[in-house]
């Protein structure tokens, strides 16, 4: 959509409009003038016929924009404050992890929709198998959020309903150092929440937790343990049979 085809609203909110604002874009209702401001004249009708009205300029374009970068510093400071804020309100380490998880959960729900939209209606499909949705999260969703794909995707050998997504250096906790007296707190619980939110809204009900498992050369290596609900496993078995 070319830039000049969009009609921008005269001012950010209707209540801020004055009588002088009426003719700036030659179109639009102005409450301080009344009905005459919305009159259909030759000028306004030609605008209406040829142009598209966008009350939310930028959104229609940016939703399809694939690479959108923010500074890692700003993100780190924001996340730093998120952790501090949750920490202040929490009653303990487990509570803090739950709060971070909860904040991520909402992002996961919404980001699933967004990344599906970005895939395009033609190519995108609804994942109905556990492995497919996990691969989607491991690659597409991860790439949209962090600009890279996760390092590993594994299935637990002992337990049937457990899967693992492994990231060698989770982006948000790159600069986070958890003191010893905080036990095994991992601030990537926030990312675990994102995974959980995305899985839940895709219909795969699961519990996701983050665990630090340092390896030679990557001290921040984090395992996201995904524990699916029994109903998801039985549904999967039915799909395989039929």
């Amino acid at each position: 959509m070319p830039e000049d085809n969009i009609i921008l609203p005269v001012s950010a909110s209707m209540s801020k409009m004055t009588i002088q604002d009426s003719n700036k874009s030659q179109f639009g209702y102005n409450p301080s003038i009344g009905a005459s401001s919305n009159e259909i004249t030759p000028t306004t009708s030609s605008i209406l016929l040829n142009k598209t009205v966008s009350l939310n300029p930028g959104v229609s374009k940016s939703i399809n924009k694939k690479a959108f970068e923010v500074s890692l510093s700003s993100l780190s400071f924001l996340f730093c404050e998120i952790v501090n804020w949750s920490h202040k309100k929490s009653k303990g380490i487990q509570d803090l992890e739950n709060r971070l998880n909860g904040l991520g959960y909402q992002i996961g729900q919404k980001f699933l929709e967004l990344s599906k939209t970005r895939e395009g209606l033609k190519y995108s499909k609804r994942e109905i198998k556990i492995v497919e949705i996990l691969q989607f999260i491991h690659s597409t969703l991860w790439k949209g959020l962090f600009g890279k794909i996760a390092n590993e995707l594994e299935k637990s050998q002992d337990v049937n309903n457990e899967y693992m997504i492994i990231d060698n250096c989770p982006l948000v906790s790159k600069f986070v150092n958890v003191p010893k007296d905080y036990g095994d707190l991992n601030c990537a619980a926030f990312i675990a929440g994102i995974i959980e939110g995305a899985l839940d809204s895709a219909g795969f009900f699961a519990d996701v937790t983050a665990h630090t498992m340092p390896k030679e050369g990557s001290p921040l290596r984090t395992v996201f343990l995904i524990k699916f609900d029994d109903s998801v496993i039985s549904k999967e078995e039915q799909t395989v049979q039929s």
Partner: protein
Amino acid sequence: MAVYSLYILNKAGGLIYQSDNDRHPGVNKLTANDYLVLAGTLHGVHAITSRFTTSMIHSHDPNTTNIPASRLSGPNTNKSGLQSIETDHFNLYVFQTLTGIKFIVVTSPIPTTNLGRGELNVQLELANQLFKDLYVLYSDYVMKDPFYSIDMPIKNPHFDSKIKQLIN
């Protein structure tokens, strides 16, 4: 230039981080109390020397034109005060940020044999580059850590390992 040890001081002159180069055989460990005394002394000396140099600030320096004159002449600036000590056995460089954090490194002395042209300045430039890198690490790994409270001692293994990589 070999780095012997590194000190980071908060704006009150308290030692918040100290690291020695383990690979260098000549570096002896001091007791925890001696480190604090050393840091406090250097802080005091820096504050005194900054009083000597207030009239020598270059107002035309492009790096400082945006900073109000009152802040340039105060003790919390890297444009005044003790900047380096050069001896036969070690060199000491001080870098103070605008917020008053001091980075102090003790390095090997300038080699007296085979001294080429401009060699004297080379080490100063190396030290300045080192300070820049240290400041970046400090801003990244200390300031962006949600569990760090400002002006408190830095106990951070990630920061530790990055510092070790840099000075060893």
